[in-house]
């Protein structure tokens, strides 16, 4: 079932067009990678899909409801309840501990303190950073911070996770560990993932790859239309 849909999305920053008409479907539980060279509009597409930005032209629908016309407050509520958002770095509140950071979305939804903390600890445990529950981000390594941020993005058990270069600030091994865990948990919960990255090996975690170029879909990485040499595998 199609969860999220973009139809002919156009978005410009001043005179600079970032997206020039992008159409894309994300099915329930599907992991879609959006790749392309720097400045191709990857992040802008993610922001439009997540309801953070409104497209200038075109529409974005969530389970059949057009969300780009919603008010900022309504889209905020949607992001808080149905979506999870993960950035490259710097998204944790520096003054709060890991457990507090992770419980923040639950508290916003009205969950009690104790319950939220229990859930936060569970999620920190899943990412192997339960021992950092009472540590502040400034005292953690980049990888540990990103694990906490991922736990925060997933703690509300969102239907869609938006990840913008989630491993961009991490070394290869750490990035892979974070992503492996993220993908595994997303699959367990049937959470769709929109993964923006410029690295082929990160995009390979997805079921499908959308390549953007100059604000347009260049090609999609689906299937093979030529035979493999010698049939060797």
């Amino acid at each position, binding site marked *: 079932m199609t969860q999220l849909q973009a139809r002919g999305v156009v978005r410009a920053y001043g005179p600079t067009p970032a997206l020039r008409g992008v159409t894309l479907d994300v099915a329930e539980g599907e992991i879609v990678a959006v790749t392309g060279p720097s400045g191709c509009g990857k992040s802008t597409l993610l922001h439009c899909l997540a309801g953070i930005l409104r497209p200038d032209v075109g529409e974005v629908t969530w389970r059949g409801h057009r969300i780009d016309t919603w008010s900022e407050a309504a889209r905020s509520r949607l992001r808080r309840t149905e979506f999870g958002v993960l950035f490259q770095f710097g*998204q944790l509140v520096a003054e709060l501990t890991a457990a507090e950071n992770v419980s923040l979305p639950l*508290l916003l939804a009205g969950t009690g303190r104790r319950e939220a903390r229990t859930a936060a600890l569970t999620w920190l445990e899943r990412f192997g950073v339960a021992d950092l529950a009472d540590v502040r981000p400034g005292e953690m390594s980049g990888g540990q911070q990103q694990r906490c941020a991922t736990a925060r993005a997933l703690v509300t058990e969102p239907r869609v996770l938006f990840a913008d270069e989630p491993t961009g600030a991490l070394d290869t091994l750490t990035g892979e560990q974070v992503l492996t865990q993220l993908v595994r948990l997303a699959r367990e919960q049937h959470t769709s993932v929109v993964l923006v990255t410029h690295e082929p090996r990160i995009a390979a975690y997805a079921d499908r790859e959308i390549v953007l170029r100059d604000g347009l879909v260049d090609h999609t990485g689906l299937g093979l239309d030529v035979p493999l040499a010698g049939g060797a595998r």
Partner: protein
Amino acid sequence: MRAGTLVRLALAGTRTDTARVVLTALSALLATLAGLAALTVLAIEKPPGDAWAESEQYRNALLREPGLRGGTAFALLMLTIPVLALAGQCARLGAPARDRRLAALRLAGATPGQVTRLAVLETGVAALLGTLAGLGVYLGGRELLHRPDAQGQLALPTDVLPSTGAVAAVVLGLPVVAALATGVLLRTVTTSPLGVSRRAGRERGPRPWAGVLIAGGLLTVAAIRPVLSRLNDDNDVLLRLVPLLLLVGGLTAMIGVVIGTGWISYTCGRLMRRYARRPPALLAAGRLMADPWAGSRTFAALLAAVIFGAGAAVLRAYFAAQDALDREQNQLAGAAGGSDPFYLSTMDLVDVAVAVAVLIASGGLIVAVVEGIVARRRAYAALVATGVPRATLSRSVAWQALTPAVPAILLALTVGTLLGRGLFGRVASSGSSVGVCEASAALCDDPATSAQYTRVVETPPVERVPDVPLEHLAWLGAGATAAVLVTVGVGLLFLHSSTALDELRAA
């Protein structure tokens, strides 16, 4: 580095940098005005005659009486304290961005000295522009306000000028001090091209040592009266110690309150962290605990003004009580009138000074609140992206400012009141015996008959404790709290631009 390059790089900032330069210049201007005004009052020459000879050319007793001029100059100098605090806040405006810019210059190969020179140049030049403008305003104002009235009396001492050396010291000295302060503040940035490094966690919050300072200050001031009463009038040396004791005691208590605000912030943060149920309070609690001294820095000028104002309120209550007591005594003695109304009317001036100080301190508060929001814009933008409503963030900013502010203002009010009551805790009338003649003027004037109609009225010595001016103190506290509220409101206007999504794109 060539001078041209230096100037080009010093001016390479953003709008925030421009704002900082303008505000630095403005606070330098205000400080210059206050300083020059104080110097002018001190420059009034005492006319020949005995120690009480008045300078008759002025309308106001504060300027006329030699005994009061020192106090007037001192009060004017005290006004520079909130102004300097404002300057300190302004220097922090956009500081993270500037620190990053300077760190980038270090990475590009600039030596620590070159970078420090850049920042010092910026502050120094801005302050110099401010002091020069201040000098201009002062000289211009002098010409404009030099209007003798019908009796040839002046409202302000526009007929005297401080010595050139003193003026030069203010106009050139302030920029030098500002530049040196900048150099000191930039130590950490200039030593590391990586800019602000990872911060180690604070193991323990501030300890309540501030209580010792407050108690010490209060005791010092409270000791003045007993010491005075044991002194003989001719003990000149000890008599001169009294103002010193007052100054040291008052300043110690004031520093105690300002430092105590750090402890208050931390304790409020800890309590809120434990009991807060909603995210705004939790966010505020985290910030209060992470940097408890931010509260001390932010509220220093405001709290100083509140302490001063509370002391002044007590002083006013003292004068009022003295006035009432004198009236009663005079009535007993059959005469009308109270004490000199001069003191009570002077208190109006002091109250105006306190209001001005609170206003200036609020300027510093606004700068601090805005700076706090701008410095966290990346995290704010990320939170908004994950669906945190801006209202939640606004509430967290308000919590963060108000939670420590309210107890700190209460503490400042208490300390100011206690300081005042330590000095002016009792009104006294020494008692007298007056012969009152109760007959016609003819009989009384005749020495032969007057004795027979004269009755000796004994007024016993009376001591009374003036009331605590609760209403006055409440207004002061409400005013200070309102100032904090208004600054938070203004600061929140900046929240919207600080949560713009562009902040997420800047790596």
